């Protein structure tokens, strides 16, 4: 049983097999070889895993992100942030971080944020004299904020996998997301002072007012999503669906930057991206079921307990492990593969699963821009046309900052849990 549930998946994963296939093949072989259950159970569990209202939020949030990227919403968000931070030293890079934060509060997808915001702010930053390495590094790293600040697709998947409340996880992600944003902005300010960067242009209330009016409908989106969820008006799934309708109306009828034919294309693209994730969700359901019924998960917990590690050391080891995994595998697959294994361990250590959800999301999000294989790096390479060496050099300081923030979040649970249990 050990080899079909632990060794085989690792082997297939290393061979580069699709993640859904790794889970499906391992589960099918385990059922055939070790378990005395009817194989038709495979179908039942695959269907049953996706037969969930909470998981509907995933395609809807992906759809919102795609519409925003194509329909002019991101450009208006950037213009507004630029007006607000106009006279600050390092105003343009700070604008990029702020725009990633606002965009992340709507879309919840890190690569989509890098592509959408990066496309708009990369050229102006380069024209203002910021080096290629600094610009590409900043934009590649800032995408991490979208994964942490609610709504977050990663948190929905964790919640589904760990049987936790999506709303509680979203609430727990607010302070960590803002902390990332703030730490990046502080670093940029320090760097701008050190490099004696002159402020871009003078601040003007008139311009702020103009951009606020121009972008009011785009700026209202986070309020609709998060306000609707936290006021109890909508469930996260309903809020995501409402955001889709709002984004369609705004981009199709008001901004007119997307055509009806374009909308169908975007819907098809979203369904495609949804399928890439949800098929893994479906197959991970079978895998988790086998882990539970076989007693493998409790056995793993007992082995971990036998090591007699303090929660501090255990969390440090888990952080290192997750950072490594995150640099090699995408966030969704990592969460779905590892949550059923790690949550019982952290529960046994007395760590709150909501807090751990934040730790896991942050770790894997950092992995998204960690060399050599973080997904955002390749998105940045495709969008900016910068070579990998330049991007690697640019993201180095942000990795350091992110790891420091991660340690703060790991060892001060209150930062995540204070709002969640308010």
């Amino acid at each position, binding site marked *: 049983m050990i080899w079909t549930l632990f060794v085989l998946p690792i082997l297939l994963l290393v061979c580069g*097999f699709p993640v859904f296939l790794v889970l*499906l093949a391992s589960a099918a072989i385990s059922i055939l070889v070790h378990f005395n259950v009817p194989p038709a159970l*495979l*179908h039942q569990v695959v269907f049953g895993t*996706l037969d969930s209202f909470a998981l509907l939020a995933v395609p809807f949030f992906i759809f919102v992100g795609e519409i925003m990227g194509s329909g002019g919403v991101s450009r208006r968000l950037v213009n507004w942030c630029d007006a607000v931070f106009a006279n600050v030293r390092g105003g343009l890079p700070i604008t990029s971080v702020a725009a990633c934060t606002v965009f992340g509060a709507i879309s919840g997808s890190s690569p989509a944020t890098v592509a959408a915001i990066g496309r708009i702010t990369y050229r102006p930053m380069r024209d203002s004299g910021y080096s290629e390495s600094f610009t590409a590094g900043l934009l590649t790293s800032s995408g991490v904020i979208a994964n942490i600040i609610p709504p977050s697709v990663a948190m929905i998947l964790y919640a589904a996998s760990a049987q936790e409340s999506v709303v509680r996880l979203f609430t727990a992600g607010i302070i960590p997301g803002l902390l990332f944003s703030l730490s990046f902005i502080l670093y940029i300010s320090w760097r701008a002072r050190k490099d004696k960067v002159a402020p871009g242009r003078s601040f003007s209330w008139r311009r702020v007012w103009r951009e606020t009016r121009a972008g009011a409908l785009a700026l209202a989106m986070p309020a609709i999503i998060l306000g609707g969820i936290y006021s109890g008006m909508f469930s996260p799934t309903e809020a995501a669906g409402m955001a889709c309708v709002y984004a369609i109306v705004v981009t199709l009828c008001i901004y007119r930057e997307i055509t009806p034919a374009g909308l*169908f294309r975007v819907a098809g693209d*979203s369904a495609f991206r*949804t399928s*890439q994730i949800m098929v893994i969700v479906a197959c991970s359901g079978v895998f988790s079921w086998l882990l539970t019924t076989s007693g493998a998960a409790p056995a793993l917990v007992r082995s971990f307990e036998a090591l007699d590690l303090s929660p501090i050391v255990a969390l440090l080891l888990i952080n290192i492990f997750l950072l490594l995994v995150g640099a090699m595998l995408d966030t969704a697959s990592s969460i779905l593969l590892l949550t059923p294994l790690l949550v019982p361990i952290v529960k046994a250590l007395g760590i709150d699963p909501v807090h751990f959800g934040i730790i896991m999301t942050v770790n894997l999000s950092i992995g998204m821009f960690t060399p050599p294989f973080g997904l955002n790096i390749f998105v940045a390479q495709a969008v900016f046309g910068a070579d990998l060496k330049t991007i690697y050099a640019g993201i180095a300081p942000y990795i350091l900052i992110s790891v420091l923030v991660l340690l703060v979040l790991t060892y001060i649970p209150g930062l995540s849990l204070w709002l969640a249990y308010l």
Partner: protein
Amino acid sequence: MFEAIAIRLPRLLGGLCLLAGVGINFANIVGRFFFGAPIFWAEEAMIFLVLWAVFLTFISVTASRAHLNMDLFQKLLPRRAGRALELAGLAVGVVAMGYLALQSWSSLQKLWSFDMRSISLQIPMVVPHAAVLVGFAGSAAAAFILIWKRRE
């Protein structure tokens, strides 16, 4: 031909299912807040539509070879070895997905014989469950064609 049937068509149909799901969600919220009459079958319909969207587009993802994977080590291998591994992945995919499709078929037969119906919509449960069969059978076929095309 392969691209139109295995990539573009499922993507289009998947997109339509997603749009229909968004529309039902909106109608349900409007019904609840403005008319005091939520659509009682909305939740079930949305789940079934997204299930179909996922499994239809699954065929397209397989045919485009766009599944998420960890290709870290595969990229380090010599070209021929990398290709052989990719081919092996497709072959394992055909077997595993074909096996799941067979299990789906047997489950569908049982659901059909018991005339199982959904709670709210009262439609035969074969309808949503068939998405799994269509997705995995279609994907297995797409993977098989990809192997076949390699031979040529």
